[in-house]
């Protein structure tokens, strides 16, 4: 089975979620070709070989430094055809998911997003999808010969298998219609760890009592090399920006460790964190429903526990 993997580049670097996608494709067996668009260092592309890519197509068109969904979809659909790929694998992101959907239409492929593990090919081609915002799974048979799969975080571990990849320049003629949406500005919190990709997330709720108290939460996040998140009321009150809102209608995270401070644990918040490997809840109310969903809990005041926890983390290292 020939598999094409979309490798997403951010600020000239391959995103970690894309390494997971390459590793996933490698585990599917068969040939793995990766494709990267826009400006990126050759050393970054060569490193994809270590995760299982045999070939890397590189479209070095600076017009593609901007993540224009339609143009990316046109390139990938053509590459799928040229490479005779049966399956296209992408890691979920605000760019990759719509690109995958558009490629599926162009290539007349079966499409599945939120895929959480390797396909089962014992009878047909069946993938497991996360549904109801992490509250259930569905087993979905992809019937068409061509398939487009968008992975949820942690569908495969980005593990080095120690190969080398050949880098091949590639180009596709694009039309004006491919650039019908124009990105006029991008605002990004620079230098921070991206919340959807973070391995550790420290989140605060109303129990933090106000935006001026976020310093002690950020101290812990810094000590743990973690991203910071928040509950919906906190972003609704503008204590924190909307892109930090974790929950049903915000960012869904899937870190190794999720630490919730002063968050009661409404079902809508749990929906955003239920894919976390380990959940720690710190709340002064012993009846907070979040404790039922936690692995470890501390009943205590955030302003007392947080500084002590930060110190304990620092002294461990």
């Amino acid at each position: 089975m020939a598999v094409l993997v979309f490798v997403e580049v951010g600020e000239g670097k391959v995103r970690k979620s894309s390494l997971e996608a390459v590793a996933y494709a490698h585990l599917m067996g068969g040939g793995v070709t990766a494709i990267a668009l826009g400006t990126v260092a050759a050393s970054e592309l060569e490193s994809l070989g270590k995760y299982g890519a045999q070939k890397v197509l590189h479209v070095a068109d600076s017009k593609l430094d901007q993540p224009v969904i339609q143009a990316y979809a046109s390139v990938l659909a053509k590459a799928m055809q040229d490479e005779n790929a049966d399956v296209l694998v992408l890691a979920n992101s605000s760019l990759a998911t719509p690109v995958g959907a558009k490629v599926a239409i162009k290539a007349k492929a079966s499409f599945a997003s939120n895929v959480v593990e390797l396909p089962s090919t014992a009878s047909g081609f069946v993938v497991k999808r996360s549904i109801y915002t992490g509250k259930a799974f569905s087993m979905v048979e992809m019937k068409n010969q061509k398939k487009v799969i968008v992975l949820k975080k942690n569908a495969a571990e980005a593990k080095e298998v120690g190969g080398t990849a050949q880098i091949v320049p590639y180009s596709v003629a694009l039309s004006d219609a491919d650039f019908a949406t124009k990105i006029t500005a991008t605002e990004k919190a620079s230098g921070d760890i991206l919340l959807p990709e973070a391995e550790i997330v420290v989140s605060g709720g109303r129990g933090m009592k106000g935006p001026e108290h976020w310093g002690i939460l950020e101290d812990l996040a810094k000590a743990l090399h973690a991203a910071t998140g928040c509950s919906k009321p906190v972003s609704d009150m503008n204590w924190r920006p909307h892109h930090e809102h974790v929950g049903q209608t915000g960012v869904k995270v899937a870190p190794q460790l999720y630490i919730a401070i002063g968050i009661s644990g409404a079902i809508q918040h749990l929906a955003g964190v239920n894919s976390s490997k380990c959940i720690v809840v710190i709340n002064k109310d012993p009846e907070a429903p979040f404790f039922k969903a936690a692995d470890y809990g501390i009943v205590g005041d955030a302003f007392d526990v947080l500084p002590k926890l930060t110190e304990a983390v620092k002294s461990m290292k």
Partner: protein
Amino acid sequence: MKILVCISHVPDTTSKINFTDGGTKFDTNGVQFIIGPYDDYALARAIELKESIAGTTVTVLNVGLADTEPTIRKALAIGADDAIRVNAEPTDSYFVASQIAANAQGYDLILMGRESIDYNGGVVHAMVGELLGMPSLSPVMKLDIEGTKVKMSREIEGGKESVEANLPLVAGCQEPIAEWKIPNMRGIMSARTKPLKVVEATSSDKTVVTQKFELPAPKGAVKMISADNVSELVNLLKTEAKVL
């Protein structure tokens, strides 16, 4: 301007999820169905545009069986002018997108939520755009119309992007694009008589088939640690959970 708002009919966010018939059917017992929360944002923005741009009409569309009609009537009560129900079960993203595309001729703006909160595909807008040859964008947090130009703000990982495109356009919406609207008594009364057209699904082959549903494995009991012994937590995270 003609606006089409596509709405999903989904279990309320607080619903307990269960399946019956050997994991092949969703258990609707005790479940309250609502307009998808993201679709509600799309509808609210459409109504705001109708109020600010003269001659604008808002049509709602739902792909669903007859039991979704109370949800459609609620959208009419909120302020949509008329409705279309495509009489079919919304089984997967591609099927729903192809039904929407088959009924979306002549609209300048097609809005919907960023995703439905049942199957979480998050791609119907992108597929509808592709099927109709229109640009599409999601998740859109701000959408303003100046003539035929649409100015949007879209959430991306760790930030946002400002994007411009021309009508016609498809957008998947999320907060804070508009404030949710609550139907008033006049809206509820008038919704009863607003036109709701039922159309049959166009024959569309299923490209994916759901075989069965599963629930996640139950979670073990929480381990409580004293607030005076925080270093014990760090120790457990390191040696037991192995996440540090």
